[in-house]
């Protein structure tokens, strides 16, 4: 071990420590950006170390340099453009794509190591085990994340795609993949078998993600994020690099925690999400306002009625849901909040699964210039509802259903926002259609609830106009 390798190893340690401290700084919006920059510095240190190491080893060929610089710079340019141009509503897709390429790169690193060693002196079993794991996990993440991104973007149907024999195909892929893996693990360094494993894993990623509905996307995106972390860590085992192992393990933990949190917030088990067939996606089983609740009476109100209630309230809690994100009404919501804040206390109560990926709604509202101090998490917001004059629910459904507190229905036990405890409730919704759980929301038939049937964006704009008229008069 000479001084250069020691310096390089220490640099990887510095980078890894930087990542940990960076994640720690993300425990508050006030320090999060500093954390992100520290993480970036750590990454620069790691890349500089890798560069030093390959220059020092001097094994790289001229072609190798060209391949590395052209490939790396090309990818960096594409990534930069995507990150700069993406609209905040489309962030989940782009995160999925970055996730896909990360998993793909991990598998390629392992495959590159395999191709180099195959047919030579033989591959040690520890490298072989890690390689086989990586060419399974990496491609599954790659194709799975691309399908998830396609579903989020609307290129692939966001409804669960289930057809007869789908399970059979998945089972067949598993058998092929496992069989080929065992052949490799038995000590045969066959490139053809490696390719077979990669193909089976790619196909498995597709059949795994296709049956999962749009509503479950926050869970799936988090799970695939975790997979990529694991794939990168395994690539670290293949090439024996601590930086990759630590970085990958941190992401694996992060994705794993988010997966469990999201599944819990949706009242679903991770297993049932992965089995798929649930959640019909964007359209939802929406029907006309008269479709359900025929026996129960609902109180319809106009935008003017809503404006009067809001204008005279001294404490308003806005509950944004998926409908607000779908209608891209975050700017209207922010404008209404700012308008009402001239005379009242106003904040947003945000359920963990509001939006299309974990925490997505917060980003949308932050983009609309809502200060983060006005974005309250479920646990912080719930004690505030009993003292709120008006709770304004915009495009949220199941997460406000008081039925969740009673056993014996699909939302039982689901953590909800206690909207029904507010002194009065206004719900802006396109129709009486069901949420993903497919049941009636008891909040809507509560006598203190007024229903404003409208698109979130149009409804909020009308309320804003009416409030302004009231304030002016």
């Amino acid at each position, binding site marked *: 071990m000479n001084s250069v390798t020691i310096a390089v*190893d220490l640099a*990887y340690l510095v*980078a890894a420590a930087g990542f*940990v401290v*960076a*994640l720690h700084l993300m425990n508050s919006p006030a320090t*999060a950006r500093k954390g*992100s920059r520290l*993480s*970036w510095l750590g*990454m620069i240190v790691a*890349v500089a*170390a*890798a560069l030093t190491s390959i220059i020092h080893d001097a094994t*790289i060929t001229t072609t*190798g*340099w060209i391949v*590395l610089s052209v*490939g790396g710079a090309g*990818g*960096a340019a*594409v*990534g*930069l453009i*995507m*990150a700069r141009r993406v609209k905040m509503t489309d*962030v989940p897709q782009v995160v999925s794509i*970055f996730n896909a*390429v*990360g998993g793909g*790169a*991990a598998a*390629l690193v392992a495959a590159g190591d395999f191709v*180099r060693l195959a047919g030579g002196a033989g591959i040690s079993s520890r490298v072989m085990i890690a390689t086989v794991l990586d060419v399974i996990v990496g491609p599954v993440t790659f194709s799975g994340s691309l399908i998830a991104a396609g579903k989020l973007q609307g290129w692939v149907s966001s409804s669960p795609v289930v057809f007869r024999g789908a399970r059979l195909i998945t089972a067949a892929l598993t058998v092929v993949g496992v069989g080929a893996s065992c052949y490799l693990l038995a000590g045969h360094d066959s490139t053809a078998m490696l390719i077979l494993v990669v193909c089976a894993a790619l196909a498995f990623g597709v059949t795994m993600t296709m049956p999962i509905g749009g509503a479950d996307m926050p869970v799936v995106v988090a799970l695939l994020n975790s997979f990529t*972390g694991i794939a990168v860590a395994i690539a*670290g*085992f293949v090439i*024996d*690099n*601590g*930086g990759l192992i*630590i*970085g990958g393990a*941190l*992401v694996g933990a*992060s*994705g794993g*925690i988010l997966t469990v*949190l999201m599944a819990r917030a949706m009242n679903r088990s991770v297993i049932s999400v992965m089995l798929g067939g649930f959640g019909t996606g964007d359209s939802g089983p929406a029907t006309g306002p008269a479709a359900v609740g025929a026996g129960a009476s609902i109180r319809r109100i106009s935008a003017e009625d809503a404006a009067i209630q809001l204008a005279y309230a001294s404490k308003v809690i806005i509950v944004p849901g998926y409908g607000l994100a779908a209608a891209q009404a975050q700017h209207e919501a922010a404008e209404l909040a700012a308008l009402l804040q001239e005379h009242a206390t106003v904040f947003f109560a945000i359920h963990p699964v509001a939006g299309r*990926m*974990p*925490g*997505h709604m*917060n980003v949308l509202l*932050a983009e609309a210039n809502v*200060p*983060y*101090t006005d974005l309250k*998490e*479920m646990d912080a917001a719930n004690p505030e509802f009993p003292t709120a004059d008006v709770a304004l629910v915009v495009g949220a459904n199941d997460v406000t259903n008081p039925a969740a507190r009673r056993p014996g229905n699909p939302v039982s036990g689901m953590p909800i926002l206690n909207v029904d405890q507010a002194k009065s409730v206004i719900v802006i919704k396109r129709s009486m259609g069901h949420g993903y759980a497919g049941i009636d929301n008891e909040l809507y038939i509560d006598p203190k609830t007024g229903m404003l049937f409208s698109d979130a964006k149009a409804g909020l704009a009308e309320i804003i106009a009416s409030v302004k008229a009231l304030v002016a008069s």
Partner: protein
Amino acid sequence: MTTGLMSDIYMFVLAILVGYEVITKVPSTLHTPLMSASNAIHGIVIVGAFITASQARTDAGYALAFVAAFFAGMNVVGGYSLTDRMLQMFRKRPVPPAHDGTKELS
């Protein structure tokens, strides 16, 4: 880094535990930036792409290294710029405009 299997496993397990401790403290307000930030961190796979490229000798090896470098470059640069773009939007309540004339709009 030449360490050996056992210390690799030590690192892996301890890093998962550290990750768990640190990440459970992230508020749900920041879950999207967190996911993007962790996405950027797994861009460390670019180090693997460097090493793959440095050892490649065959056409297949070069092809794998090229795609790995492309993917990893996209992952790391895209991940960090997207995270930063999101985090800069999380602001405190803005001070009145009179005191804020110099602040850039974004």
